[in-house]
């Protein structure tokens, strides 16, 4: 069954929200606002009652899959359990009902929380200082590159215009480089190790080292492989005068095990909505704090939380070298509160255990799926928190693709892995179980994946036409792009199907 759009519900004059009565004298509108600046056509928002709203969005929620619904092995997205406790903390009126411009004396707890969270993240990353301002991972990347740019310019090396990026990097890396005014240069993966092609790196640095502003690395990378050359890469790039950027999307694998700072990185971003379990909210909000080494601290955006000798917290100006600001106010505070709760819940031993358990779960799945699916870089004995399986065997044998397998998984009450990524692996299925799944769930996933492999041989149509049990079947993506319909308009053909109003 379908759910009509909210615009297809209601009737003229219906209303849900009530507003306070006007308790002050009202002057004629025209005496307050010049008539030519008044709105001619009211915004045609829906006219619906409260019960219609409640049923509509309840129905929509029931047509959506989340971590609370089931297993979500979406590679590189770290879809771990989102603690309810952290939701409650963020919803406390003392946190949720704060205006960003309140006098500092009235927001001591809020600044303190951010002051302490910065310190925790700096310790976890092995960095000197952290800014909590960026709103998401990509925003952190861009901010980090801006810092690097400011640093080079300050040193009179503003000519550096290249950012080296491995071919297995997240799509945000090259896009961030462009937005920061850089040119992205791709470096291939070494087919032997799954790590960076060191030959290529050396030759690039030899030929264009003076142009290189930075290299952006994810370690473990999107193949789930830890690049053992990290320290050597750092040495080479630093020697060439470049900076090292650590994409923290995969930080769930390194908590308490190793630190980007110790590997030689100069900048790192966190995805708190991944590593620190803040919920992804169907696409956001997230938070992408970045940590930096001492030499980059003067360039950080401001303001920064600080504490004076009396123990009072305040917002400190970042100084004259600061790049400025990358968003209004100071960050996605509501997300930061959740991350703070997360770190305090686990403590040092717990965070280490998080990473170890995530790695164990990934290796367990990789080990058990290897009989039915090809594994990318099988020569690497142990993966980190994720790994890449492929549908290459199935594709060859019966034409069943990674996408088909993804769709078929939905029929079993699970979400799908990230498919066709990283781009360098054909028919890739990038699988990240996270530490919060039970062994039973992992075993169920293995069982279903084996069953699908069996179906691909015995009855490939059932896989190719999947999903079969979802609220809608496969949707026509091509049509959506060819004839974009991005908004409802009056007179638009009604959503069809018999549905309860």
């Amino acid at each position, binding site marked *: 069954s379908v759910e009509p759009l*909210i615009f297809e519900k209601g009737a003229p004059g219906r209303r849900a929200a009530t507003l*306070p009565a006007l308790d002050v004298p009202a002057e004629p509108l025209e005496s307050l606002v010049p008539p030519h600046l008044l709105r001619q056509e009211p915004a045609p928002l829906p006219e619906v009652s409260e019960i219609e709203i409640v049923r509509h969005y309840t*129905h929509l929620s029931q047509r959506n899959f989340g971590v609370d619904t089931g297993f*979500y092995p979406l590679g590189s997205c770290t879809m771990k359990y989102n603690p309810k406790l952290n939701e409650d903390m963020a919803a406390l009126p003392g946190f949720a009902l704060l205006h960003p411009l309140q006098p500092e004396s*009235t927001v001591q707890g809020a600044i303190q929380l951010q002051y302490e969270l910065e310190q925790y993240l700096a310790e976890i990353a092995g960095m000197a200082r952290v800014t909590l301002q960026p*709103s998401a991972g990509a925003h952190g990347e861009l901010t980090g590159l801006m810092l690097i740019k400011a640093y080079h310019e300050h040193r009179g090396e503003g000519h550096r215009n290249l950012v080296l990026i491995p071919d297995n990097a997240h799509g945000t890396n*090259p896009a961030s480089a462009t937005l920061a005014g850089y040119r992205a240069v791709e470096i291939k993966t070494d087919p032997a190790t799954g790590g960076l092609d060191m030959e290529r790196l050396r030759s690039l640095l030899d030929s264009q080292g003076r142009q290189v502003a930075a290299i952006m690395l994810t370690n473990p990378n999107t193949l789930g*492989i830890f690049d053992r050359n990290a320290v050597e890469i750092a040495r080479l790039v630093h020697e060439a005068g470049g900076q090292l950027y650590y994409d923290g999307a995969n930080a769930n694998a390194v908590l308490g095990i190793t630190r980007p700072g110790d590997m030689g990185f100069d900048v790192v971003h966190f995805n708190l909505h991944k590593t620190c379990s803040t919920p992804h909210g169907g696409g956001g909000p997230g938070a992408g704090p970045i940590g930096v080494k001492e030499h980059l601290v003067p360039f950080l955006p401001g303001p920064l939380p600080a504490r004076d000798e009396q123990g009072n917290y305040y917002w400190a100006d970042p100084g004259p070298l600061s790049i400025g600001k990358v968003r209004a106010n100071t960050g996605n505070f509501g997300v930061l509160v959740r991350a703070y709760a997360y770190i305090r819940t686990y403590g040092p031993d717990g965070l280490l255990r998080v990473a170890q358990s995530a790695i*164990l779960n990934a290796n367990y799945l990789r080990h058990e799926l290897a009989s039915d699916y090809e594994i990318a870089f099988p020569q690497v004995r142990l993966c980190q928190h994720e790994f890449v399986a492929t549908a290459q065997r199935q594709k060859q044998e019966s034409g069943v693709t990674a996408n088909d397998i993804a769709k078929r998984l939905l029929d079993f009450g699970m979400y799908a892995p990230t498919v066709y990524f990283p781009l360098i692996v054909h028919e890739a299925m990038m699988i990240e179980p996270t530490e919060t799944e039970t062994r039973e769930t992992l075993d169920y996933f293995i069982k279903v994946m084996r069953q699908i492999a069996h179906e691909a041989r015995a009855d490939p149509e059932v896989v190719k036409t999947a999903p079969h049990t979802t609220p809608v079947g496969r949707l026509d993506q091509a049509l959506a792009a060819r004839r974009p319909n991005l908004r409802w308009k009056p007179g638009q053909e009604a959503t069809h199907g018999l549905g309860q109003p």
Partner: protein
Amino acid sequence: MGYIPNTPQEQQAMLERLGLQSLEDLLEPVPEEVRLRRPLNLPPALAEPDLKRLMTGMAARNKSLDRVISFLGAGTYEHAIPSVVPHLQRRSEFVTSYTPYQPEVSQGMLQAIYEFQTMVCQLTGLDIANASLYDGATALVEAVFMALGPGGQGEVVVSAGVDPQYRRVLRTYAHARGFSVREVATENGVTSLAALEAAVGPETVAVAIQQPNFFGCIEDVKAIEPLVHRQSRTVFISVTSEPASFGLLASPAEYQADIAVGELMSFGNPMSFGGPALGFLAARERFLRLMPGRLVGQTVEEGGAKQTGYVLTLQAREQHIRRERATSNICTNQSLLAVGATIYMAALGKEGLRELAALCLHKAHYAQRQISALPGFEPAFSSPFFDEFVIRLPISASRLQEHLLQYDIIGGYDLGRDYPDLADHMLFCVTEMRTRDDIDRLVAALKEVAA
């Protein structure tokens, strides 16, 4: 431990299945030279009741807006959140889902975002809107990128009436991406038409005007528009951080804006110390392929049933497909806040939006009249305003703020922080949340310091 379900015994069994002895064995791929051979220097783990005690205590150290009467706006507005909004927005199927890459099990979020895109178009009058951006400031930046086009260069003209934080963010991005920003002064609280006319030239790729502007003043956008569009390729960007104004003031489409951006957090989402916020971006149809971020489109099933469904579409614009040639690097956006705003706007409805705007307008004007009647408190400008207004104070803004805090009142924003010539000027905001009694209490407290 924490939220890790498997016990040490179970983990041991899984390790054995892998032919390993211990969790430590799993870490073999990480070279010894970079291993952290000590515990992280973090406070020890806390049980749930202990953590709640700690954090409830920290929260109590803040004077939240349920405990004070606030007249702060300046980009962040206090509007009532109907209870239905959080009840529905916080449904865990929405909260715990990822970006809807698998549409067949993500129709709820996709349809809600499609409704959000529609409502943003309804507010602004424009043709298309995206699924959200980080906040109003970065939305302005994204609009400028659209005007510049891929690799494009040029100058952006921005009114000094645009939120100073937005302008600071724009300058930060401008420096990195490489384009120039020229600011145009205000006069009597609104953009100087003469200065604007002088600033716009052939190299002007875009002009950004805030409506109502940072001082709460209503710009004469009908007079500004011809000055912008005199240059046929100049893009007119309108910025709105107080969306209640859409209930009464001419829509961006009505004053011929090309792109409308701004902040919708105050529609249904708690202000949460300023974040997460909710940037919106709407534009005319011709900007479709230049749009940043996620777009949800309506389509039908592939099979015979042809049931309606929703998908992420036009992804060829985006970073994960087009990489360095993407229209933006944004990936994670503010979807859950967009859901909140969507539910809010559905609850408010067509008539409610108008009523909301009228309440804000009338209450702010009542407050302005009352304050202006006090000796020493003078309106800084005579331009028309919406729900914020600037008052010249008889004492410094910081001293006044301290005085008001005694009464659990937070006064307006100290404009001297951003405009040196407006030292001792305060920007007061009055929304529907302030009662007449609240306002009268403010006025009584102000009276004590009146000249």
